[in-house]
């Protein structure tokens, strides 16, 4: 597999919709060639961890969320919410776990209806420098098998597109006879895969939500086909 041009993960990256982290679910996000396990503790705090147990490399996303710890499925090591430190090794129940037994953690935040993961240089809170509702209607996220730059370019050709920094674009969505302002967030998963999130940048009446979500999903899928076709033509990949 080609591994050139992997965008360096930088700053805040939108990973999943906040609504996906419900109950004791452990979600998985692939961002910048890194697998991340996401889980919410009983106090509502979100953990963004490298999806790899420090013991024997097991994917932590297959573990169980107790509300205060995440238990690895392989040997039952327990890792604490917040710090990622190992607090219990079942094979040695009367010993204190070594300090080195800690999961690699990332900063996390929740904003605009999404869980964000903080990579290098992430400071403060995610901010797209625009006024949008704090808990907007979020669209279904979609992976495009194309580089981030190509996806960003294509989204900039949408009606009324305005770039809000390098990874957010405000657009005007038209469906039926309504027009609505929306924001797309793009996140590089690898050199050739880009995650596209989106949300309505203004209040949507209850009755219009379902038709909007349907129309938007169709539109995004069509756009995806175009971009993927162009990308293949460009790079000559089959």
């Amino acid at each position: 597999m080609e591994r050139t041009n992997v965008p360096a993960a930088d700053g805040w990256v939108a990973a999943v919709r906040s609504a996906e982290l419900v109950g004791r679910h452990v979600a998985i996000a692939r961002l910048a060639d890194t697998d991340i396990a996401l889980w919410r503790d009983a106090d509502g705090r979100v953990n963004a961890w490298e999806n790899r147990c420090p013991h024997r490399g097991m994917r932590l996303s297959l573990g169980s969320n107790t509300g205060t710890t995440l238990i690895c499925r392989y040997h039952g090591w327990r890792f604490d919410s917040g710090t990622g430190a190992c607090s219990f090794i079942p094979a040695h129940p009367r010993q204190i776990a070594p300090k080195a037994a800690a999961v690699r953690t990332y900063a996390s935040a929740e904003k605009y209806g999404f869980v964000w993961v903080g990579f290098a240089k992430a400071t403060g809170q995610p901010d797209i420098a625009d006024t949008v509702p704090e808990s907007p209607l979020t669209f279904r996220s979609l992976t495009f098998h194309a580089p981030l730059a190509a996806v960003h370019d294509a989204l900039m050709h949408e009606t009324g597109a305005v770039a809000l920094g390098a990874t957010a674009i405000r657009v005007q969505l038209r469906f039926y006879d309504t027009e609505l302002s929306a924001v797309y967030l793009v996140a590089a998963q690898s050199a050739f895969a880009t995650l596209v999130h989106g949300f309505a940048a203004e209040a949507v009446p209850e009755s219009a939500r379902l038709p909007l979500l349907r129309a938007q999903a169709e539109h995004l899928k069509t756009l995806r086909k175009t971009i993927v076709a162009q990308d293949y033509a460009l790079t000559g990949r089959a």
Partner: protein
Amino acid sequence: MLVEAADRPESVLWDDWHVVAEITTLEQFGRMTSTLFERELLITREDKAVHVAYADGSGRIASTLKYGYVWASLGAGDRELVDFPEAAETDRHVLTVGSLGIRTSGLRLVENFIDVAHFPFVHTGYLGAEPDTEVQPYTIRVSADEVWVESGSCTQPMASAAAPGAAQIGYVFRVLRPYTVVLYKTNTHAPTRQDLLLLMVQPVSQERCIAHVLALVLNFEDARDIRSFQRLITGQDKPILENQRPSRLPLDPRSELPVRADAAGTAYRRWLVERGVSYGAIPPIRAVAFVG
């Protein structure tokens, strides 16, 4: 396909014998393909003879039959096949219990096989259960070019298909080859004797393998029950093994974090380093000196 010397795994693997098929499967189809060290092989049966060759027609490969399996060597084939005197005992089954493809390095699979700490979590209710998770200290010895792991006994809720109930089970693991390991396990009906479970891993590639399990088990139990029990156990390990990252076994002592319970795995990794095994592994970052 031209076989380049540079492509080859180290000779300790290349010149050894590896299981490439179960004879019963071959009998069913008459011919079959199999992959060993990324080479496509064609296995055919004419009359009573079994032939193994490169699938692209580039030549015959040394092969032999033992314990219900077809074994092949792409190299010199100058090592003895593994041998167990117990197989000759008349009150024992010699049973191929199944071959399961697993998307990971075969070395990860061998390490999993000699690891008792995962029993309560992965084989819950069979080979272990909470809260009995503590791993008692055990001894490791490297002798005659093999790694022996002698554990004390551990409590098992259901150690075999016909176990009458929870029992104290003694375990001895013996790593014979980088991709071959056997378990000697107390028989629950005859506590002075042992059942043998032999795991022979077929390295399909560095990150794919096939687990062939042979049971040399006292015939208190029905062959069908032994098969389904062992298939269940291997089936429980498969999703774990396929979700370990990286897939290749990291041999650098700093790349993962073993505790005392992992002494067997640690000894196995060190033994692989000493023997220069790198196929299916991530070699240590620099040479590591071992004392004693």
